[in-house]
């Protein structure tokens, strides 16, 4: 196969994987919510039995439900696509149409620099499983993440509705504030590994083995990054921009149909991207204990198994962060806005600065 065809493999893996997993995340979110708050969650539309898609097509599949609720995301997707797309008369039309794209695209683009698996050996050359191995590394992620503030700000403004506008303003202020903390936490990581390229950072962690994982070298940065990731994604306990209790629905109050769906999807993809970045920088990326032994094998089959296992390992770590954020969402109450800003500017930024100085002192050669 031509080498450029192999370049398509990571693209398919990343974008197919991310898009495919979003409906599953929606289902998981609702099931976990039900588990934590002692509710039922989606339990009707299953693979077999009454209400299943097969039943709708006219195939009788028995009386008993099988995996009830698993097909709910499919039903939701059909509903979102088929629903009437209402554009209220008082909105600013162009920006209103444009904002959802800014909510959906940036997290997708950010995923492009994250290596999702162990490098493949093709014609004696190593090919990292990453869409774009760019020189600026995770600065690209910071750059693109800053674009996602536009979706929220423009959506809130264009809706021409005071709740949406308040949500938009809150979200923008929150995102720029926490971006500073995020950037400073990542700066310490860059100093630790003397590189900003995710592929290089993962390589160094793999060479260090299990104890080489970033979380053991940069525990403070790990903590700061996790907090900032929650705030960047506008998830509880920092979901002030949506805040149903005060702001109806925040910036997407006026959106309906698939435009709302794009905001919704964007949120989940952003969670996946942050999870992927966290795994890459702090949890060894695709590395798993025992990789060195497997990849040293002569057999081509075992080497392929090593690569497949690395994909699985990366997926588990990313999903771990996503599940953790769902757990937090349904457990903790919401911050007040001044508390949010105090945390961002008076706690996270100073601690991140301290961490930078500490890293510099510990790494003097």
């Amino acid at each position: 196969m031509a080498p450029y065809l192999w370049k398509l493999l990571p693209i398919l893996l990343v974008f197919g994987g991310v898009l495919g997993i979003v409906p599953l995340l929606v289902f998981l979110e609702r099931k976990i919510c039900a588990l934590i708050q002692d509710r039922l969650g989606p339990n009707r539309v299953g693979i077999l039995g009454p209400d299943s898609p097969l039943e709708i097509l006219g195939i009788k599949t028995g009386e008993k439900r099988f995996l009830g609720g698993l097909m709910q995301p499919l039903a939701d997707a059909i509903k979102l696509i088929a629903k009437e797309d209402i554009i209220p008369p008082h909105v600013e039309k162009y920006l209103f149409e444009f904002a959802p794209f800014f909510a959906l695209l940036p997290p997708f683009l950010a995923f492009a620099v994250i290596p999702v698996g162990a490098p493949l050996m093709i014609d004696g050359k190593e090919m990292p499983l990453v869409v774009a191995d760019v020189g600026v590394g995770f600065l690209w992620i910071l750059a693109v993440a800053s674009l996602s503030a536009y979706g929220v700000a423009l959506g809130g403004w264009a809706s021409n509705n005071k709740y949406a506008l308040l949500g938009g303003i809150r979200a923008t202020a929150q995102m720029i504030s926490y971006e500073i903390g995020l950037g400073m936490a990542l700066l310490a990581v860059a100093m630790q590994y003397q590189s900003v390229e995710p592929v290089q950072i993962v390589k160094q962690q793999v060479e260090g083995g299990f104890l080489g994982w970033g979380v053991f070298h940069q525990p403070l940065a790990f903590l700061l990054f996790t907090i900032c990731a929650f705030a960047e994604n506008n998830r509880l306990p920092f979901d002030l921009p949506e805040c149903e209790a005060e702001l109806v629905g925040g910036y997407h109050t006026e959106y309906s149909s698939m435009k709302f769906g794009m905001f919704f999807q964007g949120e989940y993809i952003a969670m996946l991207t942050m999870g992927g970045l966290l795994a890459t920088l702090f949890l060894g990326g695709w590395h798993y204990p025992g990789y060195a032994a497997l990849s040293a094998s002569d057999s081509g089959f075992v080497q392929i198994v090593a690569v497949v296992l690395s994909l699985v390992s990366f997926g588990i770590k990313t999903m771990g962060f996503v599940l953790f954020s769902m757990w937090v969402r349904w457990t903790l109450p919401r911050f007040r806005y001044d508390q949010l800003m105090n945390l961002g500017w008076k706690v996270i930024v100073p601690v991140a600065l301290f961490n930078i100085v500490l890293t510099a002192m510990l790494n003097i050669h």
Partner: protein
Amino acid sequence: MEYSVQIMSPAAHILFWFVMVMTVASAALVVVAKKILHAAFALSICFLGVSGIYVFLHADFLAAVQLIVYVGGIIVLIMFAIMFSSHTQEAGGEGGRHYLALGAGAATALIVFTSVLMMVGKLNQPLAEQNNRAYEAYQHTVGITAADLAAEPQRLGLGHMLMGEYLLPFEVASILVLAALLGAVVIVRKETKG
């Protein structure tokens, strides 16, 4: 070709022209847009285009900084100011003078653009030659010898330059930014009693 910057595939040339047209068009939209927020949004598209051009010029780090600081920072700040200082439905509202001013400004801009083009057309002497001559003069004044130069790597990274040759400007710029930060906070702060 003397000034050809690099060898690229035809597709890359087409992409470059697409980015260029997008940049100029959105820059023009900044000026003619009726609503101020549209102007700010067009500005962000324009800066996206400029950072794309930086990538073509192999200035990747600068492209990332442009995105982080300009598109993600300054323009969002400008949007903030717009949201605080105007009402949604307020148009440009610049009265009857509007078209006259736009026309006069456009004429001036055209003159500026033409003169820039004429200057660019005068780029006859190879750039490297000029640069080398300037650098020889500089060496003469500072007293760097050819041996010193040979010891240095031919291309220094941006970080090394910021922390070496340009350390003083770097520190001055950081003090300037700090002063601006404090100044901005002091200016917008509401006066409190007592």
